[in-house]
C-alpha cells in the first residue's frame, strides 16, 4: 500500500478564500478521503432574531451572505408575508425579480472567476470579474449598495427603479449578453479548460438526489430542480425552465452556471419589458403568528428559512438552511479519486459559500 499523507486544505488557503477546512488523505497525489469541518466564523445570526423586531431582521437576514444577500432578504420577507397573509403589489414582485436575477448574475460571474482562478487561468478570472463589475454598477445605481442591496422589506420593496433607468438597463443588456457569451465560450469550448473539468468529480443523478444536493450541483447531474419553478415573485408570470446538464462532472456544473447567466439576462429583459405600474409596498401591521418554511432559489441552490412567530414583534425562531450546507455531503462523495491538483476545482464546483453556512 502506498504511503498516505494528510494535506491540510484550508481554513485559510489562498485558492479558496473561504474558511472551510478539509483534511485530504492522499496516496501519492490521489485523494482517498476528505474530511470537512466548518464553524470557524459561526456568528449566531439565527439567535439574533429574538432581539430584533421582525421588520428589522430583514437587514440582518440580508447580511447572512455577501453575495446572495438580496435573496436572503427576499426569502425572509416572503416567509413573513406568507405567515401574515400579506399581498405584495405586482410591481414589487417584478422589482424583486430583477434584483434577484442581477444578484444571480453577479454571483455566477464571481463564481466563474474564482473557478477559473482555481484552475490557474488568471486572465479568465479577471475577465469574469470585469463583467461582474458592470452588474454591480447597475445594482449600485438602482439600490445604493453594490453587494448588500437593502431594498427588500416585509410587504414590498423600499425603492423603485425609474422608467429612464429601466430603459437604460434594457439597452445595456444586449451588449452585455454578447460579452457574457464570449466569456461563456471560453469556459465551454477552450481545450485546456475542458481538459481540467471533464470527467472530474462525477456524481450521478440518483446519487445527487439521494444526497440532497441543491442548485447547480443537482442540476449539473440532471436533477431538474429549481425553486423558481414554483413561481414566487414574478417568476410565475415570466415563465421559467430550469437549466439542466446530465454529465454530473465539474464541466456540467460549470455549464449549468454559464447557461444560467444567459437565462438570467433573458429574465431581466422580459421583467423590464413587462414591468407593471403600481405601488411598491403595503403597510404591515401586527405581528406574525404561525410558522412557515420559506424557500427561494439562490445562485447556489435552494435556501430554506424556517420562521416561527408567536404573535409578538420578535420571532420565536428563525432557522436558515443554506445551500452550501446541503452541498457538503455531495462534495465529500466527489473528492475521493480526484488528483490533488483537482481538489480546488472540485471544491469550487459546488460554489461553497461558507459565510452563508455559518449564519
Amino acid at each position, binding site marked *: 500500500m502506498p504511503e498516505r499523507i494528510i494535506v491540510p486544505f484550508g481554513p485559510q488557503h489562498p485558492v479558496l478564500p473561504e474558511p472551510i477546512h478539509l483534511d485530504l488523505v492522499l496516496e501519492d497525489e490521489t485523494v482517498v478521503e476528505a474530511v470537512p469541518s466548518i464553524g470557524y466564523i459561526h456568528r449566531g445570526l439565527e439567535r439574533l432574531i429574538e432581539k430584533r423586531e421582525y421588520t428589522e431582521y430583514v437587514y440582518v437576514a440580508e447580511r447572512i451572505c455577501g453575495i446572495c444577500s438580496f435573496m436572503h432578504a427576499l426569502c425572509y420577507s416572503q416567509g413573513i408575508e406568507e405567515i401574515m397573509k400579506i399581498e405584495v403589489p405586482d410591481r414589487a414582485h417584478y422589482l424583486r425579480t430583477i434584483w434577484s436575477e442581477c444578484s444571480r448574475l453577479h454571483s455566477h460571474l464571481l463564481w466563474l472567476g474564482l473557478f477559473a482562478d482555481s484552475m490557474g487561468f488568471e486572465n479568465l478570472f479577471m475577465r469574469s470579474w470585469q463583467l461582474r463589475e458592470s452588474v454591480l454598477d447597475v445594482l449600485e445605481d438602482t439600490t445604493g449598495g453594490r453587494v448588500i442591496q437593502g431594498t427588500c422589506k416585509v410587504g414590498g420593496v423600499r425603492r423603485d427603479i425609474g422608467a429612464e433607468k429601466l430603459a437604460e438597463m434594457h439597452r445595456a443588456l444586449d451588449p452585455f449578453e454578447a460579452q457574457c457569451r464570449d466569456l461563456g465560450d471560453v469556459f465551454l469550448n477552450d481545450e485546456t479548460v475542458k481538459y481540467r473539468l471533464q470527467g472530474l468529480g462525477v456524481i450521478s443523478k440518483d446519487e445527487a438526489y439521494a444526497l440532497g444536493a441543491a442548485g447547480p450541483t443537482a442540476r449539473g447531474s440532471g436533477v431538474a430542480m429549481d425553486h423558481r419553478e*414554483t413561481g414566487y415573485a414574478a417568476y410565475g408570470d415570466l415563465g421559467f425552465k430550469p437549466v439542466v446538464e446530465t454529465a454530473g462532472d465539474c464541466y456540467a456544473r460549470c455549464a449549468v452556471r454559464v447557461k444560467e447567466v444567459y437565462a438570467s439576462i433573458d429574465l431581466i429583459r422580459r421583467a423590464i419589458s413587462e414591468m407593471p405600474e403600481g405601488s411598491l409596498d403595503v403597510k404591515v401591521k401586527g405581528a406574525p403568528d404561525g410558522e412557515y418554511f420559506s424557500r427561494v432559489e439562490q445562485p447556489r441552490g435552494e435556501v430554506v428559512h424556517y420562521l416561527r412567530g408567536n404573535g409578538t414583534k420578535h420571532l420565536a*425562531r428563525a432557522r436558515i438552511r443554506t445551500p452550501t450546507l446541503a452541498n457538503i455531503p455531495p462534495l465529500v*462523495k466527489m473528492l475521493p479519486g480526484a488528483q490533488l491538483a483537482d481538489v480546488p476545482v472540485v471544491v469550487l464546483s459546488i460554489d461553497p459559500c461558507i459565510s452563508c453556512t455559518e449564519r
Partner: protein
Amino acid sequence: MTVNEEQTTIGVALEDLTREVKALQTDGYRLVQIGCTDTGGAYEVNYSFDRGYQYRNLRLTVGPETEVPSISDIYWGAFVYENEMHDLFGIPVNGINIDFKGTFIKTAEKYPFSVTRRGGDQCRNA
C-alpha cells in the same frame, strides 16, 4: 409552468422516526434539512423532505437530554444536520455515519443554542 408548493407537517414519535423516514425515502423524497427549535425546555426537531416541490415535515418533540437515533444510514447526507444538532443544541444523536463528536462546528462556547443554557448567555447588544 408553475408548480404549487404545499407544506404539511406531521408529528412523529421517537420510536417511529426511522420507520417513517424510511417510508419517505422509499416514496422518493429527498432530505431538505433537519432543524431544531427550542420550545422552552424541550426541542422540536423538524425533518423536512421534498418531492417535486411538495414539502413534508416530520416533527419530533424531545426533551433536553433525550438521545435521538440517526437517520444517516437512510440519508447519507444527514450527517451535516445531525452534527449541527449535536454541536449547537447539544442533542445527543446516536450512530451518525460521520460523527465529528462536537468538532463539526467549532464554536467558542459549547452548545450555544441549548435550552439548558437559556438565560445564561445574554446577547451583548440587548
